[in-house]
């Protein structure tokens, strides 16, 4: 008995990936090889199921195929070892029977998330491994998403697994203390995947896998496993409230559209209301963290019917909290914008001077971009042009460079006299 393959099937298959990997890893006690075997089982399913239909017990099917690969590998490894001495005694090789239901452990996905987002890994390796082992994506899909050759991505994943092996992480759920300590790293990896997807969602990059959606799917999964963790919920809210503006961010010629010029009718209402609902629930849980605060700021923007209705005093208050919870130059920069919107551009410019000596930001294009914007608000067009151009020279994003050069050109060509045409970058 099989079910036909339809639009939801790929989703189902991806949800099963970490569960299958958990079962196979526990049975064979070898995460690195199990991960390869599950990848092969996933590829087999992606090739066979659309034609032959989905087996009645898809999870059991995947576990069986992956276990068979593992057993084959073990057999040939043992055969290699024994070839010269004795006949391989197959009876000694344990071929586990498949009992999918008893193997079921809802924590597997969580265990894998903690494992793949291990602090021993660089963020690029953690991202790649998480997408494959937890997200159920193929190496080719991940390589395509990051625009690198498939063999390079395969190496990156294999090295990540070697690092995990070398660091001796056991395949079990970290203790509650350990979990609390390592959760920020897991959330950070999911946040980076989302940003990668959000940043690449235009033009030539449209062909790329939708990493933002994948990050939201994984974060949703994380949130369901840790419903009491306010930051996991906050991160999902932040993603929804940011993704809601996606369709309005880029114009027909791939130009960046700043928030105050976006067509708010294009904002995704469903994502906004879900994000706000999640955020409200998260905030009621007590300790307010970095993601909840960023989500709260995104929510204030999303709730304004027009740009001029934006509640900037509330945004400013939230940035002040964020500066305390998670201080950093980017937060200071955004705080300065909010302060300028509430108290006027000279207040914002004054706050920026503190960043001139911050080595993390002093030569960053974003400091110039924000300064240009505030100078323009203050009516100092000549200096604004200069800073728009030096920001354009430093950014490594083509759409941002085009935007900043165009801002400078617009100011150069402005009709002489009072000019109130300004935008938030």
């Amino acid at each position: 008995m099989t079910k036909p393959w339809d639009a939801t099937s790929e989703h189902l298959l991806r949800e099963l990936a970490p569960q299958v990997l958990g079962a196979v890893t526990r049975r064979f006690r070898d995460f690195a090889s199990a991960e390869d075997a599950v990848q092969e089982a996933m590829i087999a399913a992606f090739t066979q199921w659309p034609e032959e239909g989905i087996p009645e017990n898809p999870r059991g099917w995947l576990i069986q195929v992956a276990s068979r690969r593992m057993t084959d590998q073990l057999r040939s490894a043992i055969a290699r070892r024994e070839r010269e001495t004795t006949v391989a005694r197959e009876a000694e090789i344990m071929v586990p029977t498949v009992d999918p239901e008893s193997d079921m452990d809802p924590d597997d996905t969580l265990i894998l998330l903690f494992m793949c987002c291990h602090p021993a890994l660089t963020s690029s390796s953690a991202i790649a491994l998480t997408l494959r082992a937890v997200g159920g994506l193929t190496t080719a899909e991940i390589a395509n998403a990051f625009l690198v050759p498939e063999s390079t991505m395969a190496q990156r994943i294999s090295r990540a697994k070697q690092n995990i092996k070398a660091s001796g992480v056991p395949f079990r759920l970290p203790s509650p203390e350990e979990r609390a300590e390592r959760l920020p790293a897991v959330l950070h990896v999911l946040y980076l995947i989302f940003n990668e997807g959000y940043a690449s969602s235009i033009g030539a990059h449209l062909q790329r896998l939708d990493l933002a959606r994948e990050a939201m799917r994984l974060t949703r999964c994380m949130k369901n496993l840790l419903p009491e963790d306010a930051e996991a919920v906050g991160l999902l809210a932040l993603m929804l409230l940011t993704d809601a503006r996606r369709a309005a961010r880029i114009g027909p010629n791939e130009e960046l559209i700043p928030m105050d010029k976006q067509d708010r009718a294009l904002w995704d209402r469903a994502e906004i209301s879900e994000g706000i609902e999640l955020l409200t629930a998260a905030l009621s849980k007590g300790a307010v963290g970095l993601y909840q605060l960023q989500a709260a700021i995104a929510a204030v923007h999303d709730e304004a019917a027009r740009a001029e209705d934006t509640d900037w005093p509330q945004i400013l208050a939230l940035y002040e909290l964020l500066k305390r919870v998670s201080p950093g130059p980017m937060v200071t920069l955004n705080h300065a914008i909010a302060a300028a919107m509430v108290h006027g551009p000279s207040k914002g410019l004054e706050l920026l001077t503190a960043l001139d000596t911050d080595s993390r930001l002093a030569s960053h294009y974003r400091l110039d971009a924000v300064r240009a914007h505030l100078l323009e608000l203050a009516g100092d067009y000549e200096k604004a042009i200069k800073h728009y151009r030096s920001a354009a020279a430093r950014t490594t994003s083509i759409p941002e460079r085009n935007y900043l050069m165009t801002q400078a050109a617009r100011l150069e060509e402005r009709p002489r006299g009072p000019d109130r045409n300004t935008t938030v970058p």
Partner: protein
Amino acid sequence: MKYILMMNTMKAGHGVPEWPKKDLQAHIAFMIGLNKELHERGELVLAEGLSFPDQAKLVRAGKNGLPVTDGVFPESKEFLAGFWIVDVDNPERAYAIAAKVSAAPGPGGAPLNMPIEVRPIMSGPPTEML
């Protein structure tokens, strides 16, 4: 983060390097080993070597947009000999790879200390960074 590492070592009018066989072999083995290492680390996006400058043509659009080719070249001009595109975690790693390329062995096995130009590759739009 992707970076391009450009090796500008060729000069117009200079042909293939006339080094002893052992030095040439050491140089070639070094480059092959380097590419293998970058691939194994999951960092290599692309590596290409270019033909010698005497194969190069300067092309401009003439009347009707047709190509007008021109031979080469001012004597002192430096030419791109090859390039690597790497995907690494931070600029320091890109510089470290460039330093390794720069120290490729030359005549007598001494490091060439070639200048390697490292530049970030432009990407899509930035994140909002609230």
